[in-house]
């Protein structure tokens, strides 16, 4: 035990405009299960893809079994016994399990593929680690859990002694996850070393020997698996031990403007990403929805806004059931929505600031009449918003793609808040935004509340949630695990709820 297999230090990796990994470090000892945790975008996958040679870092060294490299290639990584199971499976659906496993490394007898030898080897893995698969089934016909086992066999078939699993449980049912952990434990017993990437803390604590926390591309801490606790990890992942913001402004809640009742929503991979979410928001209050990213917050926002189908349950907006209505209708019933990704949905980056600002109101007077756009009025309208929201550079014809993150977000906020809709759904409104813009945006949310809007604030930033919300609901694995009023909420209780614990 405890001989160091891999040591990564001083790793820097930049993608255009974003520092994905900064001064990253990671060590893996022989025969351990080492978890790498952090929020989405913390740089976990990037760091491991650097190890596997898929990205080459700008600087830093990777030492594998005492041999140092500035960067690796996948071929070299495989040669040194590193295998990676990606979030997206890399299997050929039309080929059988057996064919997928041996692809590129076929055992031969003369010119023929030695099927017998391949089957024996697969059988060996099945017996040793419990990796049971159906060698003759097509990959398209097997379950996700089995496909994952095929991926694991594939890497070991190629001689992997070090296995990197990128969010392996994201696609699994709880039972399948439990099965995977059994497999990982038996692999560990056999001397394999495993890197387990996740943001589900309960699993991490269950299986890890050591845990490394990353945030914003940086190494935050490496803890001992047996002594780490969920709230501690949550705090390290989410960051900020000091609360910068103030306390929520007093509120006088009015009637219920939005209620979500027992909503089920399908996810990208899971059957149900949301499983029975219920809450309601009154006019004149801010309901904060906290949680570690990826627990269904994105799906919740999209379902309310009509951008994602609702399987079951009701969304009632201003007294009308709006679930599964087209987004335009839902907007007409009084919803405005700041989406979590300003570049995907929030802005048309190929267009300019005035068209982006007018995109929700261009079809009505005074911006247009009888289907004809009055560009003079659009310019005035946009100019007013640019002034009152301090969008820089202050030009109606500035291309949206040329705005900084904070100003781009201010365009989105200006468009959504200026309509004075009775319900404002704000999803990660200050993510990736500079301090000045954060203040402006938070002030706008408070102003909307003061003017009588019902505000739903979805944020993974605990400090933001605590400094703005009147009530706080916590989401975990597609459910609301608890609701607290802001006066009784603190970091500890929220952290517990965020990781699935009960108060």
């Amino acid at each position, binding site marked *: 035990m405890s001989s160091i297999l891999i040591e990564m230090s001083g790793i820097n990796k930049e993608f255009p*405009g974003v520092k*994905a990994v900064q001064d990253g470090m990671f060590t893996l000892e022989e025969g351990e299960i080492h978890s790498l945790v952090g929020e989405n975008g913390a740089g976990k996958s990037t760091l491991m893809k650097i190890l596997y040679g898929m990205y080459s870092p700008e600087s830093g060294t990777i030492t594998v079994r005492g041999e140092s490299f500035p960067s690796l290639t996948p071929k070299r990584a495989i040669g040194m016994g590193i295998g990676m199971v990606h979030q997206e499976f890399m299997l050929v659906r039309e080929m059988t399990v057996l064919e997928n496993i041996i692809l590129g490394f076929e055992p031969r007898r003369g010119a023929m593929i030695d099927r017998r030898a391949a089957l024996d080897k697969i059988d060996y893995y099945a017996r040793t680690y419990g990796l049971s698969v159906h060698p003759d089934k097509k990959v398209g016909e097997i379950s996700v859990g089995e496909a994952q086992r095929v991926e694991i066999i594939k890497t070991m078939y190629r001689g992997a002694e070090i296995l990197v699993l990128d969010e392996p449980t994201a696609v699994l049912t709880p039972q399948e996850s439990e099965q995977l952990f059994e497999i990982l434990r038996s692999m560990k017993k056999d001397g394999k070393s495993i890197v387990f990437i996740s943001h589900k803390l309960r699993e991490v604590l269950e299986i890890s020997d050591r845990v490394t926390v990353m945030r914003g591309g940086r190494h935050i801490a490496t803890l001992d698996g047996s002594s780490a606790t969920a709230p501690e990890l949550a705090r390290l992942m989410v960051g900020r031990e000091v609360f910068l913001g103030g306390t929520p402004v007093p509120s006088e809640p009015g009637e219920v403007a939005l209620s979500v009742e027992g909503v089920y929503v399908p996810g990208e991979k899971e059957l149900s990403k949301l499983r029975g979410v219920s809450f309601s928001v009154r006019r004149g209050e801010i309901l904060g929805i906290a949680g570690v990213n990826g627990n269904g917050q994105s799906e919740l926002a999209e379902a309310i806004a009509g*951008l994602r189908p609702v399987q079951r349950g009701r969304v009632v907006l201003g007294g009308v059931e709006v679930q599964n209505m*087209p987004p*335009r209708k839902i907007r007409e019933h009084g919803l405005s929505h700041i989406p979590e990704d300003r570049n995907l949905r929030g802005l048309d*980056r190929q267009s300019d600031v005035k068209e982006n600002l007018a995109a929700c109101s261009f079809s009505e007077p005074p911006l247009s009449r009888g*289907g004809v756009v009055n560009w003079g009025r659009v310019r005035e309208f946009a100019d007013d918003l640019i002034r009152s929201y301090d969008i820089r550079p202050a030009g109606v014809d500035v291309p949206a793609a040329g705005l900084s993150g904070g100003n781009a977000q201010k365009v989105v906020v200006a468009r959504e808040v200026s309509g004075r809709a009775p319900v404002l759904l704000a999803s990660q409104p200050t993510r990736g935004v500079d301090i000045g813009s954060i203040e402006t945006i938070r002030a706008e949310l408070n102003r909307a509340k003061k003017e009588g809007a019902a505000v739903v604030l979805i944020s993974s930033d605990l400090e933001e949630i605590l400094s703005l919300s009147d009530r706080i609901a916590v989401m975990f694995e597609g459910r609301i695990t608890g609701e607290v009023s802001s006066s009784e909420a603190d970091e500890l209780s929220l952290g517990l709820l965020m990781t699935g614990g009960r108060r």
Partner: protein
Amino acid sequence: MTRTSWGATLLTILLSLAIGAAAIMLLGYDPVEAYYQLFRGAFVGKFNIGGVFERFVPLMLTALAFAVSAKVSVFNVGVEGELYLGAMAAAWAGYALTGLHPVVHVPVCFALAMVVAGAWGAIPGALKAYWRVNEVCVTILMNYVAIFFTSYLVGNPFSARTSIPRTPSIEESAKLLRFLKPSRVNIGLFVAIGVLLLVWWVLYHTTWGFRLRHTGQNPDFSEYVGIPPKKVMVWGMILSGAIGGLAGAIEVMGIHGHFLDNFSPGIAFDGMLASLIAKNDIRMVPVLALFLAVLKTGALGMERFTGVPKTLIDTIIAVFILLAAMEALFSWKRRGAASAGEGA
């Protein structure tokens, strides 16, 4: 389109002409003489000038049809089929409806052509919007269907019973007035320019155009602000088809006077190239269509007077497209990098 990209286009034109000159020299001809005759063949004399406009009209309209579909992010290779169906619809309305005043007859022919071709364009649009079927495959195959269908029609039910397969001649009341005789250029030129201006106005000055452009640029954004991207995509394709159909109608009513089997030597594909070089910018479409029309018309004169084969002009056009494509590649790369920066 900014001033620099106008300059870039001009530079591309000059560079491709220079490469063409080198090719002419390699073939053993005098490039100056060849280009002089090319110029004369396009601009000197009513017949030649008229010839340029004759070619310009269908090129420009089909280029416009392609550009409109590109605005809703559909790569519409099917304009040729729309052109054929529009031509056939106009020819039928032209000879089958009799006793109408020209002021009624001409618009009726246009309208029928646009409705038929617009409906044809809606098919690949709906397939792509609602079922994500690749529009390039669909439109290429639908071209065959359209062209063979018109062949069947001129061979059988709509045949003029002449030695060549064509429909009966259209009524005088459906013919478009010609000018600059002896060329066949006709008032279809003004119709085409009018349509260009109208389409530009619709795209940039109406709420309908606003929806259309944003849908093409970012369908996720459109959906989120409440524009139904699928519906808008189909409408964009209907407009594109209608413009393609109008191009066919003008060919029949202004140039031929009847529907002639296989009358188009791939006009819409040249139009598509013009639009691609113009990067689907509506304002650049007529410029590029005119440029191609000049080259194609002048090539005849060049061949007649200098012996330089007129296919060389196709080479120059190909070089031109290559250069323009490279330029587009570079600008896309820049844009891609910029968006990746914010997106990551």
